[in-house]
Every structure is written in structure tokens, then in C-alpha cells.
């Protein structure tokens, strides 16, 4: 299929390209940019005038709830939500039901996802069987099935000896380990520790829970160098430790969720369970530090942390509500909102959604590594075309995800996706959806 994207403002953070030009795509690859020769006869033309043409978004954390919720067609709804949000590649964490600790489960997930012809799905395998933090999984087998790394989702490994052995084993093969730094015992609370949690009578998660976990991981990395990707940094203190670790040359990368980037503890108002999140959103100083860290490169990627929690699990008293929010369709908009507010250059705002996450995935991408998250001639044709000045309202009707609970409900956000191309195929076209 030959596709021509005409007259859009093409931005590629990796090369620094920022120009209004055409993009010609054939056989899943970008064949020409700018001077597209007259003999390129497209089967389809997308008029991108007034739009930004960016590499397709790479979301390092989006839950598809499959395996587990097949009966509710969650895979279908969440995948279509992803491409509607301009996401062309996504990493799903292993906390499915059953846990992604068997190659068969990974095979099944990948093949079902591939059949939908939407975003590329890169599963994270479980680091320990059942995520129980006791027994190693068969990482080589899982990698063969398609896992790009191994993690524990939201279940920290309590036994430090097991953690060390996981790191050592992964290091033997050069696999990446994805960890959310939170001490198990200190992390039992439901809100960020602080004056608000005290007033509201909610059990708190202190910053020290993140700091202790980071220290533990970094100490272990000194003796066992392996790529660790730190998921969902939530505090200024934690971020400072990550910065220092990077300065020391430790092989770490990290991400932050759209929630910690924009919200603080006080936003829960009168116990709004849409703010029941893990990690919890912290205070002003933490938010400021995270925003600065994302702008200056200390943080490599912005993630949606998408979790389509259902109504029954949210319509409960705060502490009982299931943590998580629907977010994959808001990822681009929330990045642009941040960039607009903090005057971050557009190329940086797009980098944290594209080239940044792609480089976190690194050589686990295999041949895709050279061009995923980029727009380059000869590279894969994963494209997100969006209108930067179009605002849209976050409401049930505008969300394709089955999860309707987001703390941004009712917000008007900038940046509306017009079309999403995955592997040269138009996976999402707003004009066809009546959007």
C-alpha cells in the first residue's frame, strides 16, 4: 500500500527535522521525505496541512488486560483506544491474569494483537513466576516469544537475595529489568504521605519508600551491571538519586506517568477515587522536579500508565478503590499540555513520547531499533498525524477505552489525532470515525 502524507509539519526529534514537507510511504517503510518524486503514485493521500506529522508514539506502559478479560473484548477496545491516541507501539506490563510468565501466554497475546493491525505490542515478561518474587521465570524462552524485558509490575520483590539473583540472571543474557522502585513494607499506603493524607485520615506512602528502593537497586547495579528501567518515578528525592546514578554511569533509564506530571495530592478533593493511583501523586515540589527532569532529559520517557479500571472497582471508598486510570488516549494531549505550560520545545515534548522510549527499549527491538520512534527515510512507517491547536473534551463519549475513569475527566485538552499509521497501514483515521 502506497501512502502519501501531504503538507504536514514533519518533526523528527532524533534528527532535529522540523519542516513542512510530504512523506511517502510504501511497503511499510518511509521511502521519501520532502522531495517526493512525481512518479510516486499513492493508493491513498492524507492531507496533513495544519497538522504535525510525528513518529508514532511509543507508550512504555499500557495495560490491555489480556490475558484475563477476553470475555469483555478488552484487547480490541484498548488497542483501538491506543491508535486513536496516536500510539503505534506499546509495552504492556506482566500483571495480567494469568501473569505473563509462560511463553504460551506471550505467543497468544502477540498473535491476537497482531491480527488487529493496530499498534505493535511489546510484552514485558514477569521477572518471577506469578510475580511472587520467589522463583525466576524462563527469561530466554519468554524473550524468544517476544518479551522485550522483564518486570514485576506493581509488586516489588521483598527478598533482596532474590532481587540480586534476578539482576544477575538477566545480566547474563543482556536482558532489561523493569522495576517500580517502592519498598514493599513502606509502600502499603493509599495516598502520598504528607499533610493532606494526615488530614484526610488516609494511610500514606512516604517518599522514603521510593528512596530506599532506589538505593537498593543502585547498590546492586554497582556489582551487577544490567540495564534497569525504573518505572514511574514519583518524587523529587527519587529523581535526584536517578540523576546521580546516571552521572555515575549506571545503566539506568526511567519514566514518569502523565498523572505524576500533572497532578498533586490535593487534587483528590473529597476522596475522588480517580486519584487513587500507584504510585500516588505527591506534592507541588515533586511535581515541579518531575517536570524539570522530563524537560532536561533526566527522565527518558513519558508514559500513560494506562489502566482501564471498571466502574465497580472505582465506585468504592478511596482506600478500597482499585488504583489506576484510563490514559492511553490522553498521552499525546497531556504531553502537549505540559509543553505548552512549561514552554518546552515541541521536539523535546515529542521526544519523550517517541525517540526517548524507543531508546529505552534499545536492542530488545531487534531490527526495529534503528528506526522505531523516528521518521527517517528507509525507516519503519509508524506515524502520528495530529492537529496541535484542536481541543477536545475528556468525556465518556470521546473515550474508546472501556475504562472511563480518569482524573482528567471534564478537562479540555490540546492536540487531536487525525490519523495513525502503523507499518505503513492507516490504523486510525479520525475522519472515518465521525470524530
Amino acid at each position, binding site marked *: 500500500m502506497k501512502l502519501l502524507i501531504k503538507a504536514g509539519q514533519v518533526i523528527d526529534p532524533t534528527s532535529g527535522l522540523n519542516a513542512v514537507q510530504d512523506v511517502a510511504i510504501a511497503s511499510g517503510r518511509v521511502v521519501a521525505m520532502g522531495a517526493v518524486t512525481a512518479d510516486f503514485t499513492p493508493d491513498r493521500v492524507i492531507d496533513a496541512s495544519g497538522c504535525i506529522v510525528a513518529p508514532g508514539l511509543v507508550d512504555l506502559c499500557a495495560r490491555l488486560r489480556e490475558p484475563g478479560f477476553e470475555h469483555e473484548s478488552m484487547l480490541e477496545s484498548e488497542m483501538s483506544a491506543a491508535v486513536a491516541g496516536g500510539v503505534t507501539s506499546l509495552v504492556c506490563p506482566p500483571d495480567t491474569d494469568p501473569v505473563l510468565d509462560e511463553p504460551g501466554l506471550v505467543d497468544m497475546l502477540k498473535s491476537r494483537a497482531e491480527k488487529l493491525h493496530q499498534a505493535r505490542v511489546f510484552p514485558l515478561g514477569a521477572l518471577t513466576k506469578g510475580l511472587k518474587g520467589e522463583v525466576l521465570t524462563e527469561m530466554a524462552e519468554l524473550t524468544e516469544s517476544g518479551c522485550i524485558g522483564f518486570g514485576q509490575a506493581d509488586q516489588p520483590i521483598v527478598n533482596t537475595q532474590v532481587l540480586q539473583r534476578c539482576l544477575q540472571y538477566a545480566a547474563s543474557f543482556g536482558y532489561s529489568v523493569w522495576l517500580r522502585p517502592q519498598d514493599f513494607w513502606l509502600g502499603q499506603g493509599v495516598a502520598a504521605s504528607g499533610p493532606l493524607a494526615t488530614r484526610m*485520615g488516609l494511610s500514606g506512602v512516604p517518599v522514603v519508600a521510593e528512596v530506599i528502593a532506589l538505593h537498593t537497586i543502585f547498590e546492586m547495579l554497582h556489582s551487577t551491571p544490567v540495564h534497569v528501567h525504573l518505572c514511574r518515578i514519583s518524587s523529587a528525592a527519587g529523581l535526584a538519586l536517578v540523576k546521580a546514578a546516571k552521572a555515575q554511569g549506571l545503566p539506568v533509564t526511567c519514566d514518569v506517568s502523565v498523572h505524576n506530571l500533572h497532578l498533586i495530592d490535593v487534587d483528590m478533593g473529597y476522596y475522588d477515587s480517580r486519584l487513587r493511583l500507584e504510585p500516588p501523586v505527591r506534592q507541588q515540589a515533586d511535581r515541579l522536579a518531575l517536570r524539570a527532569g522530563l524537560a532536561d532529559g533526566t527522565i527518558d520517557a513519558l508514559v500513560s500508565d494506562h489502566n482501564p479500571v471498571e466502574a465497580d472497582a472505582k465506585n468504592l*471508598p478511596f482506600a478500597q478503590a482499585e488504583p489506576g486510570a484510563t490514559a492511553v488516549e490522553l498521552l499525546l494531549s497531556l504531553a502537549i499540555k505540559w509543553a505548552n505550560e512549561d514552554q518546552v520545545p515541541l521536539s523535546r515534548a515529542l521526544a519523550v513520547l517517541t525517540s526517548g522510549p524507543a531508546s529505552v527499549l534499545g536492542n530488545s527491538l531487534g531490527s526495529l531499533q534503528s528506526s522505531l520512534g523516528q521518521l527517517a527515510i528507509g525507516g519503519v512507517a509508524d506515524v502520528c498525524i495530529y492537529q496541535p491547536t484542536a481541543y477536545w473534551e475528556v468525556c465518556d463519549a470521546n473515550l474508546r477505552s472501556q475504562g472511563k475513569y480518569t482524573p482528567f475527566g471534564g478537562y479540555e485538552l490540546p492536540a487531536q489525532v487525525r490519523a495513525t499509521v502503523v507499518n505503513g497501514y492507516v490504523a486510525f483515521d479520525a475522519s472515518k470515525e465521525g470524530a
Partner: protein
Amino acid sequence: MRIQRNPQLNSNGELIHLLSTEGLSKNMLTHMLDTAANFVSVSSRDVKKVPLLRGKSVFNLFFENSTRTRTTFDIAATRLSADVINLDIAKSSASKGESLLDTIDNLAAMAADIFVVRHGDSGAPYLIAQHVAPHVHVVNAGDGRHAHPTQALLDMYTIRHFKGDFTNLSVAIVGDVLHSRVARSNIHALTTLGCPDVRVVGPKTLVPQDFSHLGVRVCHDMAEGLRDVDVVITLRLQNERMSGALLPSAQEFFKSYGLTTQRMQLAKPDAIVMHPGPINRGVEISSEVVDGPQAVILSQVTFGIAVRMAVMSIVASHEA
């Protein structure tokens, strides 16, 4: 679904639910105390009933056991001529897995006018208040560690009765402040009513520094905490605290933080001693003090009925 304004008030600023003492103005708190004064005398009449809530149904929904609080709400509602239905949630459908909101919906379908709710989770009454129909009122009888507004109001009534003006008082709240909804509600009420010196006293595990953000003085030493106070409020120490590595034993707590006659000498000679009950004699307070002349604990109970009558009449008289 986002709640914009204080969910306790309607758009005229009138009280439709009582969920917390926090966020209520001094005038509103004073009005509730003044209304309660009206009801104190009802309890000493021959006919202890007034018809203010006749025809209304008050449902007592206690997800946490409490015979004493439930009984006072029961008596208060009965004295207002309301029909009272007590729901024993432990045995009911909630324990069979029915969600909180489904339970509320089922009860509302039985024409409840007022829900008096005690729940183990902070914030549960807010969820309920958002959810109920406009003519239904919610009174929080205690949610998790967050608030116990009627207890705070009766404590304020008691203090006003014995001490008069709040603006020149020193009040010490002693014990497990961290887990106490009574402490939080009292702190908000006292600071709103203009009390200039509120202290929280106890070991660091139970009285964290964070409480200073509520406008109180954090003390870990009884000598500092009780010096020259006019009112001492002792909180109940629960057994669970021993198992959570917060305290080694009840004996050690009593040794360092128990309210004894000797420690009461630090306070003003005419200081009063209060306790929300039930009392653990020999743990947070000695029998001597409980039975002594400075304790006004039984008055608290009497005032509690009048205060709850006032709260229910006030919320029932305002439309959402």
C-alpha cells in the same frame, strides 16, 4: 462526577449533610451548639419527645460495631419522633459481597430520609453523600481515621458548658492521635472556634510531626503537653497498636502517657478531663481520674444526645 463545592452544604450554604467539622464556619458550628442547647432541656421533660422529625426514617448504618454511638443516635432520633431502623451490617448483605453503593440504593428504595453512617474507610460517607437522592441526608458517625463530627460537636458543647469562651483556652489531646478521627474532628472544631492553644501529646509513633500542619502543637512529653491546660481530652488506645510495632505494651504507654492524678497536677486546678469512650482504665487514664471530680465524661454522654438531635434536625430542615 467531580465534586466542586463542599458536599456538606447546599447552594445556599446550608448544611445538608454532616460529614466533617472541617470546612464548617464558626457561625455554623456555633449554631449547632446553640440548637443543641434547646434539646438538652427536652431530655429532662416528662415527655421526652418533640415532633420535629415525625414521619421521617433514620437508618443507622454501622459497618463498624459500636453499640454506644448507635444507641445515642437511636435515642436522639426517637426523641425527635423519627422512625429508627438499625442495620446490623456485619450480618447483612454487605458481608455477602454487596457493594457499599448497592446497599445504599436498596435502603434508599425503602424511603430512608437520613443515613447515619459509621464506616471503616476514610471518605466512605462522602461517596454515599454524592450518591443519594437530593432529599436524603447523611450524618457521619465516624469514617476510618478521618472524622467523627458529632463527637467533636458534643466535645465542644461540653467545653463550652464548663469553660465558656474558647478564645482563651488551652486544650490537650492525648494518646493515639494518628489513628483518631475524634482527634482530627476536635482539632478542626477547636481551631475554627478560636481556641489559640491546641496540643497533641503522645509518642512519635502515634503523634507524628505532620499534625502541626493542622494548626496544633506537637508534644511528646506529658509535662510539656499538659502544662496549664484547661481541658484534657484522652483518646482510647486500641490493642491493635501493640501488634503494629507502634507501641511495646499498654503498661509502658500508661507509664509514660497515662493520665494520672499526679500528671493532672500539671494542668490548671480547675481543668476538666474528657474521654470519647469506651475507656480503658489503667491504659490511657487511671481509674482515679475517671472517677474523680475533674472528669466530665458522663456529661459528654448526656450532651451527646442533644447534639445529635440538633444535627439531625438541622440537616433535615435543609433541601439539597
